[in-house]
């Protein structure tokens, strides 16, 4: 069973129809007899070739949200809303269709490369298999393509018959990226692809990912907690807090002129070296990250917000427009509150 439009030829979608459209996505876990909302109403769209970064702290629901798009969430989680991939709702479509999408439409780069690779098979075999199954080519042809692919991510041909444990963490993550690219997907979801890696390797991997994407117009959804990293690799940025997107917009603008106080705190968390304001003055945010099991009335961020207003405790927050292509879930971003300092 395969997709109707194989590989590169499948890019029939035009500029106006989004590749991925997520509408009012909710993910709810059952834990100890209680409903724990991990994702509480997320909307966004992704056009072909778009790169979207999703930032937020642990427990904000960013990984859960991303994985639930392909129905990869944990068992026992309830997913509601719509996930339209090339117009098709992945949440209700048949398993066979979903499998086809997972094969060739959208692939995932998981955070733990070691556990995501099969330890008893060579990396070449693991990349050849999906190519053979999906593109119905001969094994020799698939091996040629896989070797090329591995070479393009910096794994030399002489090493492709090695087993995962023979590679370093950075190399394994490169293999994962090659695997994700193997069936020429339209969308790559990268879940903290560089978290366990060194700064130097991290920069290499991100550069590699950005390059692969630039060449092939693959859309990317990248999830990390490091805002400044995302700003360099993604065109747009979504900041999540307590299961909701609190700010969305072009990366540079979001990073340099955040509308939401939480984004502001995140962007200050990692200082600019040489900036006298942050010398011997680390910036943090008092209070603790929210727990999904606890939900409150009003803005979820109110308890930690340095500029909280009375209305924040009572009013319902939503993503309000805040400039061209931007939106923020903060009452201060609203025009009638704009004058407040």
């Amino acid at each position, binding site marked *: 069973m395969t997709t109707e439009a194989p590989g590169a030829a499948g890019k029939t979608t035009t500029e106006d129809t989004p590749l991925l459209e997520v509408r009012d996505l909710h993910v709810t876990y059952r834990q100890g*007899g209680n409903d724990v909302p991990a994702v509480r109403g997320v909307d966004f769209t992704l056009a072909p070739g778009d790169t979207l970064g999703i930032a937020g702290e642990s427990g904000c629901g960013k990984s859960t949200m991303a994985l639930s798009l392909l129905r990869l969430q944990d068992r026992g989680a309830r997913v509601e809303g719509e996930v339209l991939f090339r117009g098709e709702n992945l949440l209700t479509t048949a398993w066979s269709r979903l499998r086809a999408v997972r094969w060739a439409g959208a692939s995932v780069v998981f955070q733990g490369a070691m556990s995501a690779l099969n330890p008893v098979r060579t990396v070449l075999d693991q990349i050849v298999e999906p190519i053979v199954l999906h593109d119905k080519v001969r094994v020799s042809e698939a091996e040629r393509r896989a070797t090329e692919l591995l070479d393009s991510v910096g794994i030399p041909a002489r090493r492709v018959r090695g087993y995962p444990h023979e590679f370093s963490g950075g190399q394994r993550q490169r293999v994962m990226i090659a695997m994700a690219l193997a069936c020429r997907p339209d969308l790559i979801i990268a879940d903290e692809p560089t978290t366990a890696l060194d700064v130097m390797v991290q920069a290499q991997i991100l550069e590699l990912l950005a390059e692969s994407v630039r060449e092939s117009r693959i859309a990317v959804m990248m999830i990390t907690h490091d805002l400044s990293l995302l700003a360099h690799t993604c065109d747009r940025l979504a900041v999540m807090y307590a299961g909701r997107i609190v700010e969305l917009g072009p990366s540079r603008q979001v990073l340099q002129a955040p509308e939401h106080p939480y984004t502001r705190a995140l962007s200050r968390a990692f200082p600019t070296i040489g900036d006298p304001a942050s010398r011997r003055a680390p910036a943090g945010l008092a209070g603790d990250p929210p727990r999904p*099991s606890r939900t409150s009335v009003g803005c979820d961020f109110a308890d930690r917000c340095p500029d909280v207003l009375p209305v924040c405790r009572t009013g319902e927050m939503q993503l309000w427009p805040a400039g061209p292509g931007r939106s923020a879930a903060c009452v201060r971003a609203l025009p009638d509150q704009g004058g407040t300092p």
Partner: protein
Amino acid sequence: MSAAQVLSSQEVAAAVPARFAGVRRFARAFRHRPSGVAGLAVLLLFSLLALVAPLFIGQDQLDVTKVDGPLLSAPSGHYPLGTDQAGRNVLLLLIWGSRESLRIGIIATALTVVIGAGIGIVAGHYGGWVGRALMHVTDWFIALPSLPLAISLAAVLGQGETSITIAIAATSWTATARLVRAQTLAVEARPFVERARALGAGDWQIMVRQVLPNVTPLILVSSTLTVAGALLSEATLTFLGLGNPASITWGEMLNNAFFNGAFTADAWWYLLPPGLAILVVVLGFTLTGRAVEHVLDPRTEDRS
């Protein structure tokens, strides 16, 4: 700025958690697991019966020379589980037999846990040649076949519960030791052991205060399985004639039933009860063990 000074030392001391707060939390969580409660109830019922048995069962009802019941008679109002080949009440035998069977099971398990956990933790903690030597001893015991060991012990110490208990303990502690050693290695690799060492803890303090609490759940769970295994081993060894023929255990009952024509006489009431009793008690231990395992794992604990 610091509200700390406002509180007196008595007030602070009052907030110090009680020593056995953990036990109470455990008990509360255990109550929410019906299968575990059922298992524990079965065990308590059997233990209670075993403890109070001397109050209503006298030697005249157990001694083959003193009983006057009908021989191998089917269950009736007077004999709810029938009688054996000597005319004894099978129900009373069953209750009396639980005393010896449970005693052997529990003592053998206690020995197994103490030896196995002790050697496992020491071997895991020290590593090096100490650990290797201890593991070689363990391997040597693993190779020891239980049946011939029990037979030779019976020859040396005489038939009876002592040799059976020792035989069971000698062959089952190795599994616990291996398990505990593996878990000790895993626990020792975790940062809190390094933290304790950096704070100044010595080997003994690390083994007792850091490692032991973290291997205890495993020891508890494995010991419930060991009890079950010990009960079955007891039945096997006694059935094979290594027990003391004069004492009454469930294994001995099976042995008697088998060799005194319960089969040919179709006396199911003599064969089934000891077998079922073993089954129920073993099940009780396993259910309790599984519930304990669930409750002790902090990740499955209810976070209310």
